[in-house]
């Protein structure tokens, strides 16, 4: 009993120790001990398992895991929408998006930021975890200059940076995953484990896709993404009012395109504009529209059918 209590206490202390460092660093520390002969391979596995078991929230999801979750979320989004196949416009959207990402608080992401246009008149934009971002043709039509497009993309980059998609995952699922990972340190999953993990993976995807497409994010996340859009946009020197110009096109819009997707789930355009105006007023300097950008935007957008 006493030994068990000591063991539990040691685990708590270890937890505190591990909470001060990241996952890779834990693996590295364990390997240092193993390589110097201070612990056996078996003990190394035990310690690694303990490290896995101590992961508990969305913030503990590794970059690579976020990427694989994002890929499957993207695949599910693409099973609902067709891709608008226009190479030059897609490349332009990718350059604008990647330029903004450099001035975000997460410029480096596991496999980079990637953007696709969805072939629908619905007004929508979706950000899968891991930096895979979708914007509909209908939404693109509402953008009249590069700065407006940039600010809309910046809002989606904001969702990725703040990991809003991952926050949709129910905590119980994460605990189940971390428990399974904590039970085995083998390099490849055994069939039973893989089947359990795959079942949890399906539920994780349902949590995220349900939030993204059906229920929509909580308002606080939308406002946070708006705030980040202004910050990243202004840092890139885009006119942050691009987002309010876009939202103005939505005021009083009762069309079926506006009733679906983004705007079914977001706060009203008026509510967002009010908050955005206050945010922009708080900037130390507000970048302005530049004609050279609007001209190139019009050139690329002339191919939008």
């Amino acid at each position: 009993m006493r030994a068990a209590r000591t063991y539990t206490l040691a685990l708590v202390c270890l937890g505190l120790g591990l909470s001060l460092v990241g996952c890779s660093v834990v693996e590295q520390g364990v390997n240092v001990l193993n390589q110097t002969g201070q612990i056996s391979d078996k003990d190394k596995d035990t310690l690694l398992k303990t490290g896995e078991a101590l992961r508990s929230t969305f913030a503990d999801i590794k970059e690579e895991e976020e990427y694989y979750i994002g890929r499957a979320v993207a695949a599910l989004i693409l099973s609902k929408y067709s891709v608008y196949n226009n190479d030059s416009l897609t490349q332009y959207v990718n350059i604008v998006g990647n330029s903004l990402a450099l001035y975000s608080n997460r410029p480096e992401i596991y496999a980079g930021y990637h953007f696709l246009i969805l072939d629908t008149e619905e007004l929508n934009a979706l950000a899968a975890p891991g930096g895979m971002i979708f914007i509909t043709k209908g939404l693109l039509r509402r953008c009249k200059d590069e700065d407006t497009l940039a600010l809309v993309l910046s809002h989606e980059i904001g969702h990725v940076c703040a990991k809003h998609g991952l926050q949709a995952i129910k905590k119980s699922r994460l605990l189940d995953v971390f428990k399974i990972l904590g039970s085995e340190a083998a390099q490849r999953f055994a069939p039973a484990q893989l089947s359990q993990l795959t079942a949890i993976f399906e539920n994780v995807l349902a949590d995220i896709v349900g939030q993204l497409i059906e229920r929509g994010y909580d308002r606080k996340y939308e406002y946070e993404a708006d705030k980040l859009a202004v910050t990243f946009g202004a840092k890139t020197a885009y006119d942050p009012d691009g987002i309010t110009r876009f939202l103005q096109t939505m005021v009083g819009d009762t069309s079926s395109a506006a009733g679906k997707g983004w705007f079914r789930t977001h706060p009203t355009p008026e509510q967002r504009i009010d908050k955005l105006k206050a945010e922009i007023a708080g900037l130390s300097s507000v970048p302005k529209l530049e004609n050279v950008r609007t001209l190139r935007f019009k050139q690329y957008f002339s191919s939008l059918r």
Partner: protein
Amino acid sequence: MERPMKKSNRYVSLVLLMWALVVVLVVFAADTVVVKIQTTQLRKSPQFFSQAVVALKAGDRLTRVSEENGWIQVKTAAGIVGWIHSSAVEIPKFNLLAMDKDMKTQTKASEVALAGKGFNKQVEESYRAKHGEVSFIWVDKMIAIKVLPVQIEDFLKKGKLGEFRGAK
């Protein structure tokens, strides 16, 4: 004949091991950062358009030298010094002593495999085998879209954006 270790002794040794791990983590890993993204570049100066010094990949370990505006100056095991953005690496939350000088940048295969545990390629393959109706073709095409730093730099320059704002 060696006596099997008593259960209580095993607990005690585990306790010691765990403490040893915490100490090693704090002391050895304090000034180490580990690359957490698939691939990136070590750059000559702390900006994205600076010359690339050496290519890095997930799991590579680097020794932290200094920091500046979200960029970390690091040294590779080969002694190459350069800058990496803080979002590309996992950083210990505090900093006590210098890192082991003999640390190897080359990560062992087993470490990479362990780092890749969790939702990984194997789980995606298993999911895809179960859900033939979900296509990943466009996901792969999307990931293959490349925007080179030189293209972004040119785009920013021509659009008077970023560090080129206000340029004539």
